């Protein structure tokens, strides 16, 4: 049995090693700029960020590496709830950027957050329709027209919670044909033309420009999602973490985020 235990331990270790390289792999292009990542003085940062931040944070990570020679930023993008679960299960992250305050609060209550989270961006809902807008959607109320194939997020995920808020605000009752787990799944169903309309974020419509058209609706103001960012308690790179947070909340970061369609954060 001793040999067996040893073997098991070896397998677990191998699996863990595989895990950590797996988590690091998304960084591929982002950390490419940090050519001397392994050299002395190079600070390695691991940033867990909501999927909707993919484009802007990839750009910001490159900017950070350029400004701090020898440093490297590893990025991991997923749904905020997934990332929060990974962090609470001990994933080695230095920074967490969530698409909602709920998941950040969860980590804060668990004592995993260092300092107070800062709201660095906001995102609002928009209606995405396939090119040519075949169902003729012009307003939020049009989504409730009989025969309209609407796809939205499930109420359990941030974009779905925002959709529910907009629904309550307008008194419109929506009956979607599908409630997806992530906003990218909703967007995919609109891009492929399966859905007549999808409730997504302004930033999603912007990133899929050319593949979908956007219908803005004033009621979206009632359902604004706030994005908090914070250093994590397990981090050992205090100065580097602070520098990255300053970049995101500073003028350069705010410009990159605004270009992607995000609203400004609160200082």
């Amino acid at each position, binding site marked *: 049995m001793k040999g067996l235990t040893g073997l*098991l331990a070896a397998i677990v270790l191998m699996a863990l090693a595989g895990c950590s390289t797996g988590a690091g792999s998304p960084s591929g292009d982002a950390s490419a700029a940090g050519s001397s990542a392994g050299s002395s003085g190079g600070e390695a940062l691991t940033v867990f960020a909501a999927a909707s931040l993919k484009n802007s944070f990839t750009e910001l990570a490159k900017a950070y590496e350029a400004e701090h020679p020898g440093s490297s930023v590893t990025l991991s993008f997923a749904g905020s*709830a997934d990332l929060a679960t990974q962090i609470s299960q001990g994933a080695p992250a230095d920074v967490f950027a969530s698409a909602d305050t709920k998941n950040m609060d969860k980590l804060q209550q668990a004592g995993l957050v260092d300092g107070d989270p800062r709201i660095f961006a906001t995102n609002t809902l928009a209606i995405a329709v396939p090119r040519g807008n075949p169902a003729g959607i012009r307003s939020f109320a049009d989504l409730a027209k009989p025969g309209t194939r609407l*796809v939205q997020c499930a109420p359990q995920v941030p974009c779905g919670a925002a959709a529910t808020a907009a629904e309550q605000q307008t008194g419109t009752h929506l009956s979607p*044909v599908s409630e*997806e787990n992530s906003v990218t799944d909703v967007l995919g169903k609109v891009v492929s033309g*399966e859905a007549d309309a999808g409730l997504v974020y302004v930033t999603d419509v912007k990133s899929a420009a050319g593949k979908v058209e956007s219908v803005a609706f004033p009621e979206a103001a009632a359902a604004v999602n706030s994005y908090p960012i914070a250093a994590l308690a397990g981090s050992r790179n205090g100065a580097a973490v602070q520098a990255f947070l300053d970049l995101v909340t500073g003028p350069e970061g705010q410009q990159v985020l605004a270009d992607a369609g995000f609203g400004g954060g609160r200082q």
Partner: protein
Amino acid sequence: MPVSAAAGSERHNVSHAYRGVPRWTYVVAVLAATVVILPLFAMVARVNWANFLPLVTSESAVSALGLSLRTSAVSTILCIVLGVPLALVLARGRFRLQGLLRALVLLPLVLPPVVGGIALLYTFGRQGLLGRTLEVLGLQIAFSTTAVVLAQTFVALPFLVVSLEGALRTGGERYEAVAATLGASPGRVFRSVTLPLVLPGLASGAVLSFARSLGEFGATLTFAGSLQGVTRTLPLEIYLQRETDPEAAVALSLVLVAVAVAVVALAYRRPAGAGMAFWKQRTTPAAAADRDVL
């Protein structure tokens, strides 16, 4: 089934055969079993038993389980209706490109289900190969329960075909040949000889198809969407609950594990007999043939 007595005697004969196993294989075998069993054990250890019943009897959970059982049953019937002739053609037919056809039909066995979902989307989706025609006929498949059944059938059909084709091949053709010389038409031979002979293989194939349908996730999510009572089967419900309520996800996972255990137990009920005719190559069909046909 009447097979067990014959199979039992076969097993008795085999017990005098060589059974030497190198000692080290036991160590690796235990390790291999641990790789499969440990994660299941870890999950069961996480179940909140105090809340278990309320969690698995919530409205959304019951709706998802009901939908899963209904769609899997329909898919299994479709697999039998479509799979039996296909297996027969693959096992007994003689035509060009037979090998290629078999390889293509078995492809979903190794294909990631999400790829299957994308393929189905471009076939039955609104903009798909058949989608426009279907829409003209007033049929909308995407986002409907039909889409769930299609996705399940797509991934489960190869299981039935593999099991049945194996049973047909190992069963041989001598009884059919005898029946034919006695003047039975191919249809009569199929109904009276072939089908009873391969029934165990068909049964285990159907059980495996049902199990595969029950576990279908990727193709459904990609192709059918997710809406309570319409397309959100139990695996999709688990995936969604995991976002906000990991406890509910674990409890529902356990339900699925229990169903899977029952299904596997059903398929392997007689280790040397009725179940898994595909894997038990020589023993059963001949024994069954001796009893049931002669």
